[in-house]
């Protein structure tokens, strides 16, 4: 590029350049260089990295709730265990099934019509889970268990609500990719968005199982 300056050539021994002293180990970060730009242009790695980073943040968010749960339960005398409506278990099955159908659809990515069908099923299962969770809330409210009733019920609503908000983001992403796929099929080459959304979805699935175990075994 003409607009950038050309630095003067350097005529020295460069062996030691750019290293701070020899003895301290460098954790392997002194390799040949950065990832640079791959032959296919922009590295798709960043979506994957970005998703993992986002999940780390989300994990901290839920860790804060969970530690608050443990602390608040430990020191209270007003804790009345919330019995989980049996519908919760059915919802859980739906969510687990959605992870399986998601994997199924990723497996048949090259066959677009089969992929679309499994993907659609995943989306529907996810949405059904959300609807089921709302029904659970309504059942609890019908039984007179409100968010303000006692700390256990407060946490039940907060945890399921926070998870639901995150999961509805997932459902939205599933639906969005379904729409995109209809216009312009992904196929196995251009699969990054599919894989990244799958990471998120499985994480939300696993997160739900963890929350459920907490809410069930540590009432």
């Amino acid at each position: 590029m003409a607009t950038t300056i050309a630095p003067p050539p350097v005529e020295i021994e460069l062996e030691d350049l750019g290293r701070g002293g020899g003895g301290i180990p460098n954790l392997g970060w002194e390799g040949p260089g950065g990832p640079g730009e791959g032959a296919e242009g922009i590295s798709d790695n960043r979506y994957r990295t970005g998703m993992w980073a986002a999940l780390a943040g989300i994990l901290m968010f839920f860790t804060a709730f969970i530690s608050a749960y443990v602390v608040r339960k430990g020191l209270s005398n007003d804790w009345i265990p919330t019995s989980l409506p049996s519908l919760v278990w059915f919802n859980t099955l739906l969510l687990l099934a959605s992870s399986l159908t998601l994997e199924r659809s990723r497996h048949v990515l090259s066959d677009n019509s089969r992929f679309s069908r499994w993907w659609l099923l995943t989306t529907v299962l996810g949405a059904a889970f959300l609807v089921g969770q709302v029904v659970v809330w309504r059942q609890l409210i019908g039984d007179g268990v409100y968010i303000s009733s006692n700390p256990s019920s407060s946490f039940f609503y907060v945890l399921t609500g926070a998870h639901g908000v995150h999961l509805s983001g997932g459902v939205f992403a599933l639906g969005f990719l379904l729409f995109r796929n209809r216009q312009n099929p992904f196929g196995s080459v251009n699969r990054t968005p599919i894989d990244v959304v799958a990471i998120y979805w499985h994480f939300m699935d696993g997160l739900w199982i963890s929350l459920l175990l907490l809410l069930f075994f540590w009432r």
Partner: protein
Amino acid sequence: MGEAVQAHSVHEAPAGFIRKYIFSYDHKVIGIQYYMLALFSVFLGMTLSVLVRLNLAWPGTEVPILGTIFPEGAPDGVMTPEFYLSMLTMHGTIMVFFVLTTAPQSGFGNYFLPIQIGADDMAFPTLNMLSFWVTFLSLVVMVAAIFVQGGAPISGWTAYPPLSALGEIAGPGLGTGQSLWILSVAIFCIASLLGAINFIVTTIDMRAEGMSMMRLPLTCWAWFVTAILALLAFGVLLAAGVLLLMDRHAGTSFFIPGGLVVSDKLIDHKGGSPLLWQHLFWFFGHPEVYIAILPGMGAASHILSTFCRKPIFGYKAMVYALMGIGFCSFLVWGHHMFMSGMSPYTAIVFSLTTTAVAVPSAIKTFNWLGTLWGARIQFTTAMLWALGFVSLFVTGGISGLFLNQPAVDVYLHDTYFVVAHFHMIMGVAAIFGIFGGTYYWFPKMFGRMLNETWGKIHFWITFVGVYAIFMPMHFLGFAGHPRRYAELTSFEFLEPLAAVQKYISMFAFTTIAAQFIFLAIFFWALFRGKKADINPWKATTIEWSVPTPPPHDNFGGEFPVVHRGPYEYSVPGAAEDFVPQTAPDVATAKS
């Protein structure tokens, strides 16, 4: 550039004013937007501190305009105690979130991280734009809290429940104002999380060929570690904020214990734990302190090396120290809570972990001094700020050695000693980092030079001023002066200290006035300043080998290739006293 890798840009150069300057995807525009938001906020925060200092030194002063704007909080222009506490709360909140978190990380980081690592933009430009506008929304909500019925909250930037959870009954500003405050902080958390993801991915995946992690400028390391801290910390604050809002509006009792009687009225809550909030808040709050100061350390290192004309001393030690500080910052939150009623055993543990964090901080100081050793120091304005940073970092850091010992903290906790400590280290030192960055990078960002002479005048008044303001606060702490007191008239032991408060206020006003020098030279230079070259400081890192100001994709379609570490100054045998990171390797020609 000698050689370069062809690549296509992430997005096309925008057309039209709105796409270009308002809803821009360009990291450089977004960086400047963040910087301007911080500039607005710092003057707002400073205005609030003027009111705070005025009320402390000359209580009862009539400020007619205040009476007009705030007939409730300042009837006839005389500040009430609750108005004082509102201003105090907003001063802290705005400075911490919208200045110290925003300017050095989101401002400079957004502008220079991609350029310094040889990328054409952040990893996710749209997300980047979103982060800024969410931050903007957060600021709007925060400022709105000042003007609602009852005024801004009076619970301090730490918003300890039950005070912050009970609503208007516990005091003015704790109704709508407090709710907006929590909402704004929650929005800010979301914006910071989005920003943090972007910084992390950009650093990991967007580096140019040859830019290994151990060739990153220390600024990039600082932004990277800061982003990790933000990612892990802000989620926790967000969760805490959600719980606090629930306590206020959904009738839950996470933080509100049972049997409270406020203003002779029994409160209908039970079983909650005020300490739970403190744990969650400080789990965020302590990393937040480092979120404010680490980018300043990065900028100071960068500037020191440039104007010492010398490689940074102990680059690797600096990197590991950054990581060490970042890691330790998650293990020390309890030192804010020695007097809170938590287990005295945990206090000892937190005391020791806090001592551990002092070690990497000392390593940084030694390495800065090591960089100065044998240097050829050029006293540019940016360099003065960096040197000032080192001085303040030491002064603000060592007072931490009092506060990390629970026994000594018994006396000093919540006195002006603490105010002195955190202002020195995370307030003023961080601000010095920001100013250093501004004087250093302004030519690249805006294509013009800031006035060095006026810049130095600005520096000297500010440097002497901050010592004159905050040194005496240590002494107030020695005398046991509690912080957050609106008036000093109720206690006999405070009477002799009023003179010190007056003196501090006078220096505060002088120093604040000097900041208008900065404002003036900033805007003057923006339009009238001397045109800047590509590399006015003869520096080595990549931002100084791209045009001024950089084109839309930073490199004109060709990515740089990096050949060496970031701080190759005064290399023996080189034609000039700096060797840019992108200068091609011709070493083999030596024989």
